[in-house]
């Protein structure tokens, strides 16, 4: 009797039938999307942390953190997204009020969030500059303070939305089960804020440490642990969710993307900063600063690795049921 070994050949349109990776947003020109997503997370985190740090009273470090966060969004994220578009001269069609697509499209919503943030963030930077560096009369200072609070609230809300929409845009895709989960935006936001804490520490180191680094480290520790647990939960869920999601998780854990996941994301992006933040609690300040810089670099590498891993292992479901 012949051995009943089951083999399968796909003769045409392999990508529609076999579980294949998406390439549009990670390969070739798609690298621009990856980079834009990274700067989106870094910008969101840094701006948000800077904003929160300066709410009690504007400091040089907090101001520079908001400037850095704003610049990462406006000078990096948005131009990179723009460069990726196949039809750049049509980009205005995706911006409300020229489109009503914001009712359903996270991309159109994201454009709107980013534009409002660009304006509100710029105003906040100007107002904080006036409050911190310019000698205002008492009445003028009162007006600027009130204005700054209003603008800070708007900018704060819209920077969160700008950071979170990328996750929602990806999690909307039913075609890619690994992305198609509500956990994705949460992971992106928490990791973004953790990276923002690290970059704000760096800014604070360079601007006279007027933002309390111990507080930033404390929150960084908590967020790193939370994010490690979330990522673990995300992978477990992927295993239970769908065959294609399971394949994606396997690819991350032991496939071709494993080195990015384990070395760059887990070891450098999460474990190393966490260990450093624990060790520096018991170290002299001079030595701690050096380690802090290492932690900041590791955090940033982790930010690049997280988005790369998730985009890289986006695996499509098979179009035909019962095949592959």
């Amino acid at each position, binding site marked *: 009797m*012949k*051995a*009943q*070994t*089951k*083999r*399968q*050949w*796909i*003769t*045409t*349109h392999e*990508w*529609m*039938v076999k579980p294949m990776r*998406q390439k*549009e*947003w990670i390969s070739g020109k798609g690298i621009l999307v990856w980079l834009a997503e990274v700067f989106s997370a870094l910008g969101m985190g840094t701006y948000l942390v800077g904003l929160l740090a300066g709410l009690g009273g504007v400091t040089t470090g907090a101001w520079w953190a908001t400037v850095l966060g704003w610049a990462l969004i406006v000078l990096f994220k948005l131009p990179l997204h723009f460069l*990726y*578009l*196949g*039809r*750049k001269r*049509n*980009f205005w*069609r*995706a911006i409300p009020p*020229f*489109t*009503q*697509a914001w009712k*359903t*499209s*996270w*991309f*159109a919503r994201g*454009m709107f969030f980013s534009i409002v943030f660009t304006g509100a963030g710029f105003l906040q930077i100007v107002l904080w500059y006036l409050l911190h560096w310019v000698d205002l009369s008492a009445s003028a200072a009162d007006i600027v303070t009130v204005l700054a609070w209003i603008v800070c609230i708007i900018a704060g809300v819209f920077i969160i939305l700008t950071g979170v929409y990328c996750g929602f*845009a990806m999690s*909307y*895709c*039913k*075609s*890619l089960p690994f992305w198609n989960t509500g956990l994705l935006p949460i992971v992106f936001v928490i990791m973004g804020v953790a990276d923002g804490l690290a970059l704000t520490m760096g800014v604070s180191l360079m601007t006279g440490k007027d933002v309390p680094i111990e507080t930033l480290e404390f929150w960084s520790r908590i967020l790193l642990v939370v994010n490690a647990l979330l990522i673990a939960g995300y992978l477990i869920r992927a295993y239970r969710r769908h065959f294609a999601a399971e394949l994606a998780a396997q690819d991350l854990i032991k496939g071709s993307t494993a080195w990015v996941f384990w070395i760059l994301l887990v070891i450098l992006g999460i474990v190393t900063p966490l260990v450093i933040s624990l060790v520096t609690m018991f170290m002299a300040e001079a030595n701690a600063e050096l380690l802090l810089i290492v932690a900041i670099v590791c955090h940033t590498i982790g930010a690049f690795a997280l988005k790369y891993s998730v985009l890289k292992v*986006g695996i*499509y*479901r098979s*179009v*035909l*049921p*019962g*095949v592959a």
Partner: protein
Amino acid sequence: MRWAMVINLAKCMRCHACVAACRVEHFLPMHVTWAKLIAYEVDEGGMVDVSTYPVRCNQCAEAPCVHVCPSEASHQRDDGIVVVDSNKCIGCRYCVIACPYQNRTFLSKDKNPGYFPGYEKTAFEKKGQKLYPHQVGTTEKCNFCAERIDDGMSRGLQPGVDRDATPACVNTCQARALTFGDLDDPDSNVSALIRKHNGFQLRAEYGTDPSVYYVDYRLGGAPSNVAPVEAQTGSHIQHLSSVDRDAYERIYGKKADAEVKS
């Protein structure tokens, strides 16, 4: 009114005429196909089975591509056909990723090198470009030959019945595996086929409500679709017999050699 297509998998003989007709009808760029034929073989210890699945844009009632499009370039007409306005498309490729059926193509420069790469465009190509200006940097897909439908209906013709108002692939199919008609009309040819053969949609669990239905005795798993083996596999004889003699024997109960010799 909602235009729909029924594809009879038992009748499809993988001749690719629908793919060619679509290419000619829309002057498709060199490396772009809107209608596709997925063909695959399964070899179970020497027993080879060949299957063919014609696929194209499903013109979903709840189309994810329309929902995600940021510029409203992808939109749904009143008759249910999902079309892409390339003048509005920004080329973000979100729809390509969001389509669970992977039926959208981003037209990059390398996919449109001209029919004779390295040479000047022919008069035919120039004319085609005027009729269907495929724009590099935008997304494309099957549109159920919406222009034929519109033109035919304006002349009082009925899509699915009159050739001039019916999609090119349906007109061309020699095996009559494709049927086109109004899904909202319970008496239409497509509604009757779906009712009679328990027609099913591809991946209905996504909730996209496709307008392309399939009729098959295996894929849908509907008991009433059970057809004679010959009806399902008859069109694949040449492939099966050339690939594996055991498969031929399995279908016809006799040795391939004897059949070939006779």
